């Protein structure tokens, strides 16, 4: 057993304990750790954006490569700040329109292609129990979400099958969620027992 002598591991361990202290009850240690996380995340994000966007994508091409085309996206980006000034705030619509237009244009064809692949995968290429379950599951679930017809008679029966499939999906998702949350806790315990306290390898 060798307790860590690394200052930063001690900081990480104490912050982990401060966060978990909330499980007993809310307290100042938890609040401190929570605010610290928010502050550091934002600070880290800003520093990365500054270096990897402003310096690498704007300053360097403009100053060293004399690439003046960079001024166009720079101007569009700066127009976003017009929102802070009431009399010219309408100018921010220009970059927003550009982003929405370009984004939609790029995503619509690809998204359809993506969806078609999913539909194709639903079609039974061979007759087996797995394919049957997929077809029945997809159709009955879609019927459950079809609200233009009252869920009575045949439609009602099919939608009941649909809700059964939905419940099975929820059950699987819930089981996986428990697994995920436990994994996160395991990660922290592993850090405390191994990296901090040195009890396990």
């Amino acid at each position, binding site marked *: 057993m060798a307790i860590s002598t690394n200052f930063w591991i001690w900081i990480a361990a104490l912050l982990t304990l401060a966060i978990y202290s909330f499980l007993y009850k809310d307290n100042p240690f938890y609040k401190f750790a929570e605010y610290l996380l928010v502050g550091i995340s934002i600070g*880290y994000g800003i520093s*990365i954006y500054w270096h990897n966007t402003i310096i690498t994508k704007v300053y360097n091409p403009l100053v060293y490569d004399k690439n003046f085309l960079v001024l166009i996206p720079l101007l569009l980006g700066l127009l976003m700040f017009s929102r802070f000034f009431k009399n010219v705030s309408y100018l921010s619509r220009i970059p927003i329109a550009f982003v929405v237009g370009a984004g939609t244009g790029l995503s619509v064809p*690809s998204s359809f*292609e993506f969806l078609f692949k999913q539909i194709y995968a639903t079609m039974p290429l061979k007759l087996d129990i797995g394919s049957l379950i997929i077809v029945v599951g997809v159709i009955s679930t879609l019927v459950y979400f079809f609200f233009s017809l009252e869920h009575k008679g045949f439609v009602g029966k099919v939608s009941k099958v649909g809700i059964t499939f939905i419940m099975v999906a929820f059950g699987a998702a819930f089981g996986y969620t428990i697994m*995920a949350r436990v*994994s996160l806790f395991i*990660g922290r*315990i592993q850090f405390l027992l191994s990296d901090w306290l040195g009890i396990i390898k």
Partner: protein
Amino acid sequence: MKFINFINNLDKRWIYLILALCIIIPFLFPVGFPMKTTPPVKSIYDFIEDSIPEGGVVLIGADYDPSTMAELHPMAKVVAAHALSNNLRVLFVTLYPQGAGMAQDVIDNVLREWNKSNPDNPKELGKDITLLAYVPGVSAVVLKMGEDILQTFNEDGYGNKLSELEVMKGIKNYNNINLMVELAGSSVVLTWLIYANGRYGLKMGIGTTAVSAAEYYSYLQSKQAIGMLGGLKGAAEYEHLLDEKKVYGGRKDASIGMDAQSSAHIFFIILIILGNIAYFVKKRKEGK
């Protein structure tokens, strides 16, 4: 009835304490529950093992932050180590600012452990592995990579010019990438599937948190992804497969947590059964 009332009124802090014990005790006294490798994990392993020629390129997407690190970090380490063991080149890419720190930590760790276990076949940063610098834009970045990777990033995550790095030799776009394994706990996986796989035909594997795993099974069925590592269990299965090769001596972060995971699951199953019994007994009693 006394027991049912006890269950209904139990302070949840007792449950937290028992759960903590269920997780801590197996670390101190490992049981070694058996583990079976599932086909989605095996297919990613087999693809890297058998279908990529020496010198090929594996792109690993580190699109996660410390909140999901416990599940995704072991995946990143083990996939990178496996690629290095087959003398493949490894490129990390991230669409999240925090992902850069995650990827750098994985690279440091894997290189250190690899060089310790294989002094006769050392691997180098910039020659065998690197991180592409974070560039904002998400889908725009994924699309531009399909045209020209060097122009998209200019630099690696350590400030070196990409065009001068040996690891980038002969890499222009997705045509020169043999496999991408996207590690994320969010919908950014879909961005890669829609644009990189859908538009450019990039072969993809998914590594995701257990929360998202159920959602992504449909992409295996449609063959949009060749395989999937789901949660810590997926990472543990991959570690188990790589362990059989006996080429990498790094810590098996996921495998050593599997006993704790199993005991926590047993505890949850007991809780669900007890909770349901208490609910139905109470309901029946109130109905009378």
